[in-house]
């Protein structure tokens, strides 16, 4: 305990400043460090007891077997020691803890990148990177960024990074074997990077194949949106006008189909609509027999007997695709419309009626403008996935006709033209972005009006 007085003084100085307690950001950093330490302890424990417990190896652990078995010990225990020291140091308000914490965090970030570069193991690298970046932000007291960090990191890793990768791939060209080649960079020839974008909008063997698929997809998406709106609006309106105790129940009923996977529900529709399904059986067996019995009585039954002798073409055509899309996306229209209509002040409608407006006028001038945000939200939510629909046209349309989603799947899976597929993906994304912008614009305008 023979400390020199100067050291003693230096060490006690920050304690005076922070007597009220540890800085909340630093405390958070301490908890993150200790959490990290717990993680490394767990991994270390797994690594040490691999032979006796027979763990199912994680991706990171498989990757680490490429290195001599001592190295993982060094990495795990190094990270563990650093996290433990920093965590406890911060909680004990040690002056050096912040500097050491920053240094180890920066070192761990470098380690994460090296690790990924050497072993190509994504999850381990991401875990180290996520924890270390958070610590850096906390220790440098970036309050705003620290609060936004979990969401921002998630978006960065799982949205922005993949998007950048997709964009880079879309600039390349497909090799004979289906791998991606990038043309050598030349300034005056920069256009070749965008060949795939040009191809989408140009003639291929005399036809605008891709534009045709594109137009068809947009048309079907618009049609589906209108159909959902036409049916969903009165429905949502009706629910919103029910007594309060029933509304929750009704909305609950709308959501029940989501309990079953969409694919399973689509297959159920196939079973219902196919030639040997219940509808066609009723039509061509039950109805047909009755009509035959009565055929002599009137011209109508003669006609019916003739009509029912053929199966109804219910499946594997365009209307079937429309049906499947409409069925799948109707709840997405009803829910935003309902949440919008539910909050409406119905007194306004009464006031309009009092002032002499008829039903049509009060709908056009009161209800419709007020429910516009719900209409736009529902339309956007229905339009965007309808545009990329892939399963429905494949299963209910008999895979005969491509929509954008199928074209995209085909480029990646069958043709393995990743650059062109990525380009199509990017073009679709641009359209959806435009649709979303329209949504926010309308919303903003509406709020200004109110």
């Amino acid at each position: 305990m023979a400390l020199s007085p100067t050291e003693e003084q230096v060490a006690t100085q920050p304690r005076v400043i922070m007597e009220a307690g540890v800085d909340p950001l630093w405390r958070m950093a301490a908890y993150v460090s200790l959490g990290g330490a717990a993680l490394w302890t767990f991994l270390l424990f797994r690594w040490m007891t691999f032979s006796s417990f027979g763990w199912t190896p994680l991706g990171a652990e498989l990757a680490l077997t490429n290195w001599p078995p001592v190295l993982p010990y060094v990495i795990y225990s190094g990270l563990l020691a650093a996290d433990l020291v920093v965590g406890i140091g911060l909680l004990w308000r040690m002056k050096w803890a912040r500097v050491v914490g920053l240094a180890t965090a920066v070192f761990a970030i470098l380690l994460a990148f090296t690790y990924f570069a050497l072993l190509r193991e994504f999850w381990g690298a991401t875990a180290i990177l996520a924890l270390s970046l958070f610590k850096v932000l906390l220790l440098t007291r970036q309050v705003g960024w620290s609060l936004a960090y979990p969401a921002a990191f998630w978006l960065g890793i799982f949205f922005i990074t993949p998007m950048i990768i997709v964009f880079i791939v879309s600039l390349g060209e497909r090799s004979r074997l289906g791998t991606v080649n990038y043309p050598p960079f030349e300034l005056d020839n920069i256009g070749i990077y965008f060949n795939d974008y040009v191809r989408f909008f140009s003639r291929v063997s005399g036809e605008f194949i891709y534009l045709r698929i594109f137009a068809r997809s947009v048309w079907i998406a618009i049609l589906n949106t209108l159909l959902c709106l036409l049916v969903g609006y009165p429905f949502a309106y009706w629910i919103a006008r029910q007594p309060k105790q029933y509304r929750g129940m009704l909305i609950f009923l709308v959501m029940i189909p989501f309990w079953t996977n969409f694919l399973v529900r689509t297959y159920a529709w196939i079973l219902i609509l196919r030639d040997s399904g219940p509808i066609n059986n009723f039509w061509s067996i039950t109805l047909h027999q009755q009509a035959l019995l009565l055929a002599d009585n009137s011209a109508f039954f003669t006609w019916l007997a003739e009509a029912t002798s053929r199966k109804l073409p219910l499946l594997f055509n365009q209307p079937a695709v429309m049906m499947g899309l409409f069925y799948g996306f109707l709840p997405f229209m009803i829910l935003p419309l309902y949440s919008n209509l539910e909050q409406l002040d119905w007194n306004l409608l009464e006031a309009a009626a009092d002032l002499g407006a008829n039903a049509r006028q009060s709908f056009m001038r009161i209800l419709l403008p007020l429910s516009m945000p719900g209409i736009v939200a529902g339309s956007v939510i229905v339009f965007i996935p309808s545009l990329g629909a892939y399963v429905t046209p494949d299963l209910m349309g008999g895979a005969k006709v491509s929509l954008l989603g199928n074209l995209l799947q085909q480029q990646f899976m069958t043709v393995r033209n990743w650059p062109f597929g990525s380009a199509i993906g990017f073009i679709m994304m641009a359209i959806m972005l435009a649709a979303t912008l329209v949504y926010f614009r309308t919303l903003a305008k509406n709020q200004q009006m109110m």
Partner: protein
Amino acid sequence: MKSKFAILLLVMAVLLLVACGGGPGGGPGSESGGPTADTDSDAAPQLASELSVYNWADYIDEDLLTQYEEEYGVKIIYDTFASNEDLLAKLQAGATGYDVIVPSDYMVAQMIELGLLAEIDPNVIPNFANIDEDFKNAPFDPGNKHCLPYQWGTTGIAYRAGHPYFEENPPDSWAYLFDPELLAEYSSGGINVLNDQRELIAAALFYLGYSPNSTDRTQLEEARDLIVRAKPYWKTFNSEDYDDSLLIADEVVLSQSWSGDAANAYWSTYSDETGDGNWYYAIPQEGAVKWMDNICITASSSKRDTALHFINYLLDAENGAAITNFTYYASPNEAAKAYIEPDILSDPGIYPPPEVEAKLQWLIELGEGLFVWDEMWTAIKGQ
């Protein structure tokens, strides 16, 4: 103050001791069951605890897998794909963890070129001797350096027995799939074609009298136009579950079909009363595609010995016969013939007679020509 620091140091020291004291005994790779197990093959091989098998849908009697699991204590992780292109796309996207895969002929060539298949020595597999000499040393994999034959078959036409039109005109030509005049007679009953770029365009090329591996643009455009003209008469493009969901369910009356799927439809609808099934299979007179699927080990697999052991198990005479008795595809396994049901051996749709076999052709890797095929396929699907 100092004491706290001392405690920290102590904790660190203990941790380091623990870490070093563990020694190199740990780590998933060091045990025999670990993923990098490497043992010499002449001794009883030490098998890994798991093996991932990626096969076509409905392409094995799954009892064989259970039996293998019980006998050798290796857990089989079984997964299925629907087309060669799906398989390749998945492997190229970086999917690791598959040990044994079953690609077809032309895809084997492509995968070898891409370095996706592990090189093996077929002679370390005792049951390799069971394979018919005709199927060894195939052009897409000389010397069986990567793959061993699994099953083979043909692509022809399956049609509904008892359909009034087919009673008088049994479909023996690709015209029944492509000629609008013929199609108008029976297309109301439904027609399916394979949702497979290579197979469908190859059928059109056969009908037009060209090679199924043509890369000539005018020939392919002719094939495309033929398909586009016939397409309005077709009900579905399905190559995944058409035998069960379309043929057996009577949703169609005629379908482009792989031989085994047609046989499956026949035997699934077979009734002892009539002594017949509902679906017949014909190999068109213009010629048809002959294909062979092959068992290979992925280059990324770390369990080659276990994989080889499993392949040897599949090539066993009785097991090979069990696969054929289940899938109705022909087996390249000569020794298995003793155990294959006689009905299957005598079925000309499954084991075509020599004069028919002479008209069969392999699909081969297209090289740069693939781009033209892709363009035609997009045009067909985009109409």
